[in-house]
C-alpha cells in the first residue's frame, strides 16, 4: 500500500473538495454535530476550565523536564520487563519494528490506534518487506481498503458517506450492492477483522498516555480492538512520540476526563487500557520516537504544540477544516494542530498550511491543553516568509502594498473614493482575474471618503 502523494496546495485541494457543495454541507454538519456534543459534555462539568488549565500546566512541566521524565519512564519500563527502543527518525522506528518481527519470523501484524505509525509510513515499509499489516480500527480499516490516508486523527473516514462505505465493502468484502446501514456494515467488517486477530502473533498499538512514575502506558479506544490485538499476541509493540509522557498516575484522572469529552463528547472512552508488563511467554516492546519532536522543543514559539493529546477537537470546530476536508491538508495530522506541527517537519512542503486559516481562534478555545494554536499559526506565517518560502509574486505584492499603505501622500493623489484602495491593495484589485470577484462583488465606492467629508465639513 502506498498513498498517492500530491503536489497541490491546501487551497487547490480544498477547491476541488468544495465543488460538491451538498457533500460539503453534509461533512460540515457531521463535524459540527461532534463539536456540539463536545460543548454539551464540557458544559456538564463545572470544573471544565480548571481541568484544562491543570492539564496545560502538567504538560508544561513535562515539556520543561522531558529529559528526566523520559529516563524515569525508561527505567520503570525495564523494571516491568518491557524492552525499550529509541528511534530518532521514522526510518529508525520502522527498522526497529521490522527487526523485532523478523527475529520471531512473524509476517503478519495487527495494528490499532496509531497516528504515529501513519506518520512514519510503517505499513508501506513493512509491506515492501513481505509483512502484512491490518489496521484494526474500523475507520482506519475502511481507509486502508480504500488505499487512502486518514482524514481525521480520531474519525479517520469522517469524509466518507455510509453509501460510499457500502460500495467499498461490496467491492472488497463481497457484501450485497447498495448496503449502507451502518450497523450491518460494521457487522460485516467484524468478520474479516476477527479472522485477522486470531492468527496474528504480533500486535502494535499507539500510546495515549505514558506514566513516567510507573512505567505503564494507557491506550484509549472505543472498539476494544487494541486490547484484543494485545491480548492475543505473543509480541506486543507500542510506538509513542516522546511527548506522550505524563509524570504520575494520578494525572490520568485529569487527562482521561478531558480527552473523550473533547474528542467525541463522551464522558470517557469505552476502553482505557493500562499496559504494564508482559504476560508469561509474551514479549513487550516500547519504541520512543523523536521524529522532529526535539526540534520543535527547541523552538520557543512552537514548543507547546507538543502538549497535544490528539483529541481532534480543533478539527471539529475549525470552519476551514469542516469546509475543506482533512485530506486537503496533505499531512497525517490535519486541521489546525496539523498546520502548526507540519512546518516543523518540512517547512517548504507545508508552507501553505499555516495560511489555511482565518485565525478565528476557535481551535485554541476548544483545546483541552490550551495550546495557543491560532497564535502559532500567525507566528509560523512570519517564520515561513522569513525562511524564503513565500512565492516571489507574493513578496512583490506585499512590498508594494506595504509601500502604498504606509504613507498618506499616496492617498492624497487618489481620485474617487474606493479607487485608491482598489488600485493599491492587491486582494481587492478591481479585475476579473481577481479571486474576490469570482463569487463576490466589491462594495460600490461612495461619493467621497470619510477623510474628504471631514476636511470639507471640518467634521460637522
Amino acid at each position, binding site marked *: 500500500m502506498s498513498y498517492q502523494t500530491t503536489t497541490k496546495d491546501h*487551497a487547490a485541494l480544498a477547491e476541488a473538495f468544495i465543488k460538491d457543495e451538498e457533500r460539503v454541507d453534509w461533512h460540515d454538519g457531521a463535524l459540527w454535530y461532534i463539536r456540539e456534543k463536545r460543548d454539551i459534555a464540557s458544559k456538564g462539568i463545572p470544573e471544565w476550565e480548571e481541568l484544562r488549565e491543570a492539564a496545560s500546566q502538567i504538560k508544561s512541566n513535562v515539556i520543561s523536564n522531558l529529559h528526566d521524565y523520559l529516563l524515569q519512564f525508561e527505567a520503570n519500563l525495564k523494571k516491568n520487563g518491557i524492552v525499550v527502543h529509541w528511534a530518532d527518525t521514522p526510518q529508525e522506528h520502522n527498522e526497529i519494528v521490522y527487526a523485532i518481527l523478523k527475529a520471531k519470523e512473524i509476517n503478519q501484524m495487527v495494528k490499532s490506534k496509531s497516528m504515529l505509525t501513519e506518520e512514519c509510513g510503517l505499513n508501506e515499509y513493512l509491506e515492501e518487506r513481505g509483512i502484512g499489516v491490518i489496521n484494526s480500527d474500523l475507520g482506519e480499516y475502511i481507509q486502508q481498503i480504500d488505499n487512502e490516508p486518514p482524514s481525521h486523527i480520531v474519525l479517520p473516514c469522517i469524509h466518507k458517506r455510509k453509501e460510499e462505505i457500502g460500495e467499498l465493502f461490496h467491492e472488497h468484502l463481497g457484501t450485497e450492492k447498495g448496503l449502507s446501514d451502518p450497523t450491518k456494515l460494521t457487522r460485516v467488517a467484524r468478520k474479516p477483522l476477527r479472522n485477522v486477530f486470531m492468527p496474528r502473533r504480533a500486535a502494535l498499538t499507539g500510546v495515549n498516555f505514558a506514566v513516567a512514575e510507573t512505567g505503564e502506558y494507557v491506550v484509549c479506544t472505543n472498539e476494544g480492538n487494541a486490547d484484543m490485538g494485545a491480548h492475543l499476541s505473543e509480541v506486543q509493540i507500542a510506538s509513542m512520540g516522546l511527548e506522550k509522557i505524563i509524570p504520575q498516575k494520578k494525572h490520568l484522572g485529569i487527562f482521561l476526563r478531558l480527552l473523550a469529552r473533547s474528542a467525541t463528547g463522551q464522558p470517557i472512552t469505552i476502553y482505557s487500557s493500562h499496559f504494564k508488563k508482559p504476560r508469561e511467554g509474551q514479549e513487550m516492546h516500547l519504541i520512543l520516537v523523536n521524529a522532529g519532536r526535539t526540534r520543535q522543543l527547541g523552538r520557543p514559539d512552537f514548543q507547546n504544540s507538543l502538549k497535544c493529546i490528539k483529541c481532534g477537537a480543533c478539527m471539529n470546530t475549525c*470552519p476551514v477544516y469542516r469546509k475543506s476536508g482533512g485530506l486537503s491538508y496533505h499531512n497525517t495530522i490535519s486541521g489546525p494542530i496539523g498546520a502548526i506541527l507540519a512546518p516543523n517537519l518540512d517547512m517548504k512542503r507545508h508552507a501553505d498550511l499555516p495560511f489555511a486559516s482565518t485565525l478565528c481562534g476557535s481551535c485554541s478555545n476548544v483545546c483541552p491543553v490550551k495550546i495557543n494554536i491560532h497564535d502559532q499559526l500567525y507566528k509560523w506565517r512570519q517564520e515561513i516568509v522569513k525562511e524564503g518560502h513565500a512565492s516571489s509574486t507574493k513578496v512583490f505584492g506585499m512590498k508594494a502594498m506595504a509601500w502604498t499603505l*504606509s504613507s498618506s501622500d499616496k492617498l492624497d493623489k487618489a481620485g474617487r*473614493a474606493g479607487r485608491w*484602495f482598489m488600485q493599491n491593495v492587491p486582494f481587492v484589485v478591481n479585475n476579473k482575474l481577481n479571486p474576490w470577484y469570482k463569487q463576490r462583488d466589491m462594495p460600490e465606492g*461612495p461619493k467621497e471618503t470619510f*477623510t474628504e467629508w471631514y476636511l470639507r465639513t471640518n467634521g460637522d
Partner: protein
Amino acid sequence: MNVGLFIPCYVNQFYPNAARATLELLRKSGVNVGYPTRQICCGQPMANSGFEHLAQDCNNTFIDNFAEFDYIVGPSASCILHLKDHLHSDTQEAKATEIRGKLYELVEFLTDGLKIESLNATFPHKEGLHHSCHGLRGLHLAQMSELNAPPFSKPEKLLGMVKDLEQVRLGRCDECCGFGGVFSVSEEAVSVKMGKDRVRDHTRSGAEYITSSDLSCLMHMEGILHRNKSNVKVIHISEILNASI
C-alpha cells in the same frame, strides 16, 4: 477626555457612513474627538500574510498620528486587536507600548469606557448580529461558545437599548464568516463557502440586516449577498446605535 478617532483605511474608502456614525456617537456621549487626517493602514494585511516586518512604516505612522490622545477608538475590532497585539516600533517602542494600552474598539469603549446605559436610537428592523472572531475571541466583546463560562455580550447590551429593533436567533452564534484578510482571495473557495453558510444562517433566521463590529466581515458577506441579488443588507453596529427615524 481627548479621543483619537481611528478609521481603518478600507472603512474610510468604502464605508464613510460608519465612520460618521462612530464620530457622532462619540460626540453625543460628550467626548472630545480628534481625527488625524494623515492616518493610514494599521498594517494588518501585511502582518497576517507573514510580512509583519514590512509593517514598520505603518506602525510609525500610526504612532505619530495617535500618541497625543488619551484614548484611541475605532469601529473595527480586527484592526484594533492587531494593533493591541502587534504595534511595535524600532525607534519609539515606549510610545508603542503606551498606545497598545489605550486602544478601544467602539463597542467596548461605549460599554466599558463610557459606561453607556441608554441610547436615543430607533431601528425598526429584524437584525442578525455577526460576531467578528477578532472582536469575540480577541477582544472578548462577548462570551465565546467554546468556553464553560457565564454568558455576556457587549454588542447585544447596546443593541438592546435601541427602540423597535428585533434581534434574530442564529443557528451557530459565533461561527467565522471566512473573510480572514488575504485568506479571502488566497483560499477563495473556502472563504466564499464559509461566507455563504454564514449569510444563510442569518437569512434563514429572518434577518433584514446583518450587523457587526467589523466591517471587513460585513464587506465579505455583502459581496456574497449582492452577487446573489439578496434583499438582506449589511450595516455596521455604529449606524444602528446612531440611528433615528
